[in-house]
C-alpha cells in the first residue's frame, strides 16, 4: 500500500500549474483576478476618455445646489429652493411611505385571499384563484397605470363638489374623493408643551405613549399567562388592555386639545385636512393588489405545508375549529410563509420605483428623474439611487437571516 506522498522535490514543471489540483485553483484565481482587473481598467479608461471628451467630471457638489423644482407630496418641509440632497430625502421618505403602506395592505389582502383559496366554499375558492391569476399574470406597470387612470378619469373634479346642486358630495362630510387625490380629516393639537402651538413634539409624545402602551399590554398578557399557569384560571385581559391602549391617548388628546382639520372646498380646490395625492393612492393600491396575489400563493403554500395530521391531532384534542387555525396551523405555517413574505416586501420596495410613471415623487422620480435631467449628472445620480436600494435590500435580508436562524426547527 502506498499513500499519496509529496512529489519528489525539484520536479516542479510549469504544466503542473494547470494539471496539479494543488496549484490549479490558485492559478485559476490569479487568472480570474487579472481578467477582472483588466476588465475594470478597460471600463475605467473608457469612462475617463468619455468624460474627457464631453468635458465632464464626477462630482457630488450638485447635491448642495438648489433643486429648483416643486414636489407636491412631501412629509418633510421642502420648497423649490431646497437642495437636491433634500429633494432626494423627500424621495426616500416617500419611497418608504408607499412601501410601508403597500406592505401592510398587501399582507392583509394576501392572507385573506390565501386562506379563502383553501375555503370549503367552491365559489369563493374559484373567485380567489381568479383574483390571484389575474393579478399575477399582468405586469404591475399596467396595474399602476390602470388604477391611476381610474383615479384621475372616473373620480369627480373638485369643482363638481361646488354649488347648491353639486353632482358629487363628500362622504360623511369628512372625506372627499376627487381626481386630484383623497382628502381626509387631519388631526392637530392646539396646545403644545409650554403653552405654545402644537408641534411635532406632540406627535413624538403620541408615539412614545403608543410604545409605552405596547409594553404595558405585553406585561398584562404575560402576567395573565403567569397566573394561568399557577392557578389554572386566566384573568380577563380585554379590559386592562383596552385601558392601557386608549386611556393615555384620550387623556393626552384632551389635555393638549386634539382637533380635526376637516377638508373644505375653497375656491377651485379643497383645503385643510390631509391630501393623499392620486399618484400615491394609485401606486399604493396597485402594489397592494399585485403583491397581495403573490402573498396569497405563499400563504396557501405555507398552510398546505402543515401536514394534515396536525389538524387531526388538534381536533382529537378537542380544540375548536377557529382555534386550530390560530393555535396549531398558523404558527407552523408562519415558518414557511415568512421568508417568501419578506422577499415580497423587498419586491414592493423595488417595484415602488415605478412611481416615476404616475408622477409620485419617490427617490427614483426625484433623484433619478428630475434631478438627473436638470443637472445632467447621470452617473452620480444612478449610483446614489442604486446605493439607496442596495442598502434597503441588504438591511432587510440581514433581518431576514437573523429571523430565519431564530425560527429554524431546533432538532436535538
Amino acid at each position, binding site marked *: 500500500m502506498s499513500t499519496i506522498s509529496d512529489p519528489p522535490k525539484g520536479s516542479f514543471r510549469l504544466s503542473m500549474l*494547470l494539471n496539479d489540483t494543488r496549484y490549479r*485553483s490558485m492559478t*485559476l*484565481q490569479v487568472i*480570474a*483576478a487579472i481578467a*477582472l482587473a483588466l476588465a475594470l481598467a478597460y*471600463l475605467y479608461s*473608457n*469612462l475617463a*476618455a*468619455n*468624460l474627457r*471628451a464631453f468635458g465632464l467630471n464626477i462630482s457630488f457638489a450638485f447635491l448642495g445646489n438648489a433643486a429648483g423644482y416643486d414636489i407636491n407630496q412631501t412629509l418633510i418641509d421642502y420648497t423649490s429652493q431646497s437642495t437636491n440632497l433634500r429633494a432626494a430625502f423627500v424621495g426616500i421618505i416617500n419611497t418608504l411611505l408607499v412601501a410601508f403602506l403597500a406592505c401592510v395592505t398587501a399582507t392583509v389582502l394576501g392572507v385573506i385571499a390565501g386562506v379563502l383559496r383553501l*375555503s*370549503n*366554499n*367552491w*365559489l*369563493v375558492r374559484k*373567485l380567489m384563484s381568479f383574483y390571484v*391569476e*389575474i393579478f*399575477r*399574470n*399582468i*405586469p*404591475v*406597470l*399596467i396595474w399602476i*397605470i*390602470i388604477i391611476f*387612470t381610474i383615479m384621475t*378619469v372616473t373620480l369627480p373634479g373638485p369643482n363638481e363638489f361646488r354649488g347648491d346642486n353639486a353632482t358629487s358630495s363628500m362622504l360623511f362630510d369628512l372625506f372627499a374623493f376627487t381626481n386630484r387625490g383623497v382628502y381626509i380629516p387631519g388631526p392637530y393639537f392646539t396646545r403644545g408643551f409650554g403653552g405654545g402651538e402644537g408641534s411635532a413634539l406632540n406627535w413624538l409624545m403620541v408615539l412614545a405613549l403608543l410604545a409605552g402602551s405596547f409594553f404595558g399590554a405585553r406585561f398584562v398578557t404575560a402576567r395573565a399567562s403567569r397566573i394561568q399557569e399557577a392557578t389554572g384560571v386566566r384573568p380577563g385581559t380585554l379590559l386592562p388592555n383596552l385601558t392601557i391602549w386608549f386611556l393615555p391617548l384620550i387623556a393626552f388628546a384632551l389635555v393638549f386639545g386634539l382637533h380635526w382639520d376637516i377638508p373644505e372646498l375653497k375656491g377651485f380646490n379643497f383645503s385643510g385636512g390631509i391630501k393623499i395625492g392620486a399618484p400615491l393612492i394609485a401606486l399604493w393600491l396597485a402594489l397592494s393588489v399585485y403583491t397581495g396575489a403573490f402573498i396569497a400563493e405563499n400563504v396557501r403554500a405555507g398552510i398546505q405545508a402543515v401536514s394534515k395530521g396536525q389538524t387531526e391531532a388538534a381536533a382529537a384534542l378537542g380544540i375548536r375549529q377557529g382555534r386550530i387555525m390560530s393555535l396549531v396551523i398558523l404558527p407552523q405555517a408562519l415558518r414557511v410563509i415568512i421568508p417568501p413574505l419578506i422577499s415580497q416586501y423587498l419586491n414592493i420596495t*423595488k*417595484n415602488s*420605483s*415605478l412611481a*416615476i*410613471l404616475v408622477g409620485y415623487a419617490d427617490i*427614483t422620480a426625484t433623484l*433619478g428623474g428630475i434631478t*438627473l435631467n436638470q443637472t445632467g449628472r*447621470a*452617473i452620480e445620480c*444612478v449610483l446614489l*439611487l*442604486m446605493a439607496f*436600494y*442596495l442598502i*434597503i*435590500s*441588504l438591511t432587510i435580508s440581514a433581518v431576514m437571516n437573523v429571523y430565519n436562524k431564530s425560527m429554524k426547527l431546533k432538532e436535538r
Partner: protein
Amino acid sequence: MSGTHEHSVAFVRTTEIPQQPAPSNAAGPIKWMRDNLFATWPNALLTVASIYVIFLVLSSTMPWILGGIWDAPSLTACREILQGESAACFAVLSDRWHQLLFGFKYPSEYYWRPTLALFLMFFALAPVLFFDLPRKLLIFTALFPFIAYWLIWGGTIWIPIFAMVGFIAGYFVYARFVAQNFALGFFGGVAGAAIVWYISSFVVAAIAPETPLLGAVPSRDLGGFMLNLMLGLTCVSLSIPLGIALALGRQSSMPLIKWICVIFIEFIRGVPLITLLFVASVMLAYFFPPDATVDLFLRVVIMITIFSAAYIAEVIRGGLAALPKGQYEAANSLGLDYAQAMRLIILPQALKISIPGIVNIAVGLFKDTTLVSVISMFDMVGMIRGPILASTDWNGVYWELFGFAALLFFVVCYGISQYSQWLERRLATDHR
C-alpha cells in the same frame, strides 16, 4: 314459497324492487351545492356575497364590452355612433392594431417578417419545451436565432450566416479539445469563434450587396408587443447559461471566484430593474469605447440579461443545494473531473429541480419588459402611453387599450405558468 302463503298474507313481492335514485338532497347538483356552497351559515353568506360581486362586475362590464364599436376612425366618431351610451370603443384596436403589435416605425410592408418569425418561434421552442418530441428538431432550434434575426432586422443575409459559421467553428474547436480538458475546449471554442467573427466582419463588408434581399430595419424602429416578446425571449435564453455559470461560481471552492459571483448576484438582486435600465439608457454609453455606438436595444438586452441571470443563478443554486451530497461524492469517486461531474451528473439533476423556478423568473421577466417604456422605448405600454393616447384621434380611450395589453400579457404569462405546472407533474418522479 309463494304458494304456501297464498291465502295467509295479503301481498308478497316476488320481484326485487328496482334501485331507487338517491334522494334529491343527497345526490346530484343539490348535494354538491349543499356541500360546496351552503355548508354552513357563514359559508352561505360568503356564497351570496360572491355571487353579488360577480353580478356587479359582469353587469357593469358585459354591456360595455358587448356593445363595443369595432369600426370607427376616431374617438369622436365612435361617440357619435354610440350617442351617449356607455360602451367600449374597440375601434381603436382595429385602427391601431399594427402599432400595438409592431410599433409605429416598423415598415408596414415588412409586417409578415416578424409574424413569420413568431410562427417559427413556436417550432423552435417546441422541442425545448416538450421532451417527447424527436431530438432532431433541436437543429431547427439552433438555427432559429439566426433566421429570426435576419427576418426581423433584415439587411444582408451574410451577417447571420457568418455569425452561425463562427458558432460552428467554435463548436468544432471545442469538440476537438474537450476530451483533453474542458477549459481548453471551452476557451479554444470561444477563441475560434471570435477569430471567425473578426475575419468575417471584413468579408461581410466586402461582399454585402447594395440592396439586400430583405430591407434593413434599424433596431430603434422596433416596438409594440413584438419588442416585449423579443426582449423576453432573448434575455431569458441568454441569461440561463450566464445564470448557471454564476450559480456554479457561487458554489465554487475558490474564494475569489465565489466572492465575485456573490457580490455580483447580491448587487443585481438588490436594485430595481428600473435603475439598471437607467444605467442602460444614460450611463452604459460612458463605459463603451468613445467611438463605439451601441444601440439602445442592445444595451437594454445586456442589462435585462444580467438582471435575470442573477435571479436564475439563485434558483439554480437552490437546485444545486437540493441535490444529496452523495451525488457529488459519487461523481468524484468515479474519477470524473469538475467539468465532467457538473455536465454529466450534477447539472442535469439540478436543472431539473430548478425548472419551475426558472419558468417563474421567465414570466416575471416577460412582465418586466414593460419597464422599458420608462426609458422611452416604445414597447406595448410605451406605444399606448405615447403615440396612441397622445394622438388627437384616440385621446381618452384608456380601458380598451390597457385592457387589450393586459389581455395579451395575461394570455402569454398564464400559458407559461400552466406549462410550468404541467412540467412539474411530468418531471415528478417520486411517488405520491
